[in-house]
């Protein structure tokens, strides 16, 4: 029987991931201070706090998983309007649109939604794979999700994605930033990990920890 994620599980999972991201924000601040402007921790705190507030309010009562994610994305972008915030907001919104009408999702649905989110990011931000952005963590994560069988345990599914994302994030150390603030460092950006990519890996690792 294929593994599913119910609406209620999604709410709990989002809330737990958000809580972890808020707790662990300082690592992202440090990475972003190296490569950008050091506000990524503040951005994730604002954005995930907005998600938790949305979940505690109207959005949390939304039966449609897609609409629920869309509302979370809007809250994120409104309250954390930086590059990461705008992009992550768009990712949740577009990912939500891919799940519209669903009250449970199978693993393939999840992978598909993340792919839709990735496409949206590329369109919105104009970055390509290899530009040293969060895309470089999301793309291998989707591959890893796709490599799981439909009845894999939720935790294992996210764990595989998280590990792939982390490898992707580490790979960014060998890249030179082509877009966004970090690109201003030119060659000096090499050797440093992209903070957005690390944020993706952290989110997926948190999802693996809390998926039940």
């Amino acid at each position, binding site marked *: 029987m294929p593994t599913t994620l119910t609406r209620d599980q999604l709410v709990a999972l989002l809330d737990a991931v958000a809580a972890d991201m808020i707790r662990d924000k300082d690592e992202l*601040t440090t990475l972003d*201070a190296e490569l*950008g*402007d*050091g*506000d990524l921790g*503040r*951005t994730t705190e604002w954005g995930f706090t907005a998600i938790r507030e949305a979940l505690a309010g109207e959005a949390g009562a939304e039966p449609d998983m897609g609409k629920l994610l869309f509302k979370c994305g809007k809250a994120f*972008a*409104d*309250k*954390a*309007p*930086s*590059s*990461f*915030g*705008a*992009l992550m907001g*768009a990712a949740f919104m577009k990912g939500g649109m891919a799940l519209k009408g669903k009250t449970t999702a199978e693993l393939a649905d999840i992978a598909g939604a993340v792919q839709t989110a990735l496409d949206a990011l590329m369109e*919105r*931000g104009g970055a390509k794979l290899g530009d040293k952005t969060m895309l470089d963590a999301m793309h291998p994560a989707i591959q890893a999700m796709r490599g799981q069988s439909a009845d894999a345990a939720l935790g294992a599914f996210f764990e595989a994605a998280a590990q792939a994302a982390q490898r992707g994030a580490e790979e960014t150390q060998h890249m030179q930033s082509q*877009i*966004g*603030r970090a*690109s*201003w*460092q*030119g060659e*000096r950006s090499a050797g440093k990990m992209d903070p957005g990519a690390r944020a993706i890996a952290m989110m997926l690792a948190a999802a693996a920890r809390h998926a039940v």
Partner: protein
Amino acid sequence: MKKILNDPKHYVPELLQGLLAAHPGRLKAADGELHAIVRADAPVRGKVGIITGGGSGHLPVFLGYVGKGMLDGCAVGDVFASPSIDQMYKTTKAVSGGAGVLHLFGNYGGDVMNFAGAADLATMEDDIEIATVLVADDVASAPPERAKNRRGVAGMIFAFKIAGARADEMASLAEVKAAAEHALANTRSMGVALGPCIVPQVGKPTFTLGEDEMEIGMGIHGEQGVRRGKLQTADEIAQQLIDPILADMPLAGSEIALMVNSLGATPLEELYIMYNYLVGYLKSKDVRIYRPYIGRFATSMEMAGASLTVMKLDDELKRLLDAPASTPFFDQGQFV
């Protein structure tokens, strides 16, 4: 580097409330949104509206240039953070006088993506014609072949001035956009940081510099520069800021507007010391200073350091630069 504030979370709302209380005849909040500051007389019927937007902590940038002869409005973000789509959209709507609105702002990812969203909204929902011009004047942030990638710093003030004067001439949206682009094609900046600043909600400096260090080319949010080194003399610093500008934009035989800008803590005295050197140095390169701007025009709170901005002038830019302008933070009357 201590701060006079109450709750760091209220830093921006409180300063905006103070601003509106101080200048009620000149500024107002659009549609009750404190983060959407517009001219008290907005919208000006028939005139192209010009707005900008960006993070707080750079006064007079950004909202300090809202007023006669410059901007019609400004979307205001938290400290060093982009305003939201909604705030940009409200600002756009409030300054729309029927002739279209120019979005003129610095090339920062968050701002770019959010202004794009706001432009879509204003076009779709209110039929407002939108034009967009990005400021990307900091030569330290990318080489010439990636010039479009550069970040926007103090050069935006010249763009505000030129576009604002052109809009006051009741030019069309396309003409105002062209004027802003023309100004920016002739504008370059470069800065140096001597000491950091603290974002209130972060509470500690984004970067540190040794007691005898400076960083050439550093960005206004502490983005790394091109070179960190021993603190040098005013003359040496000035030369290291102007040379990359001269290399990027040949100036021999030209007249320029020259801005010598403090990032915050650096006092005016030191700007005049730099200016004193630059007058002679530029003369030796056959460059004449038509109009100097010396002061605090684009800051990073209490950051120590300075930046130079050059706009190469032609007759049109001179006419528009010389036009009067008046905001609560910038007054340019008839005197030089």
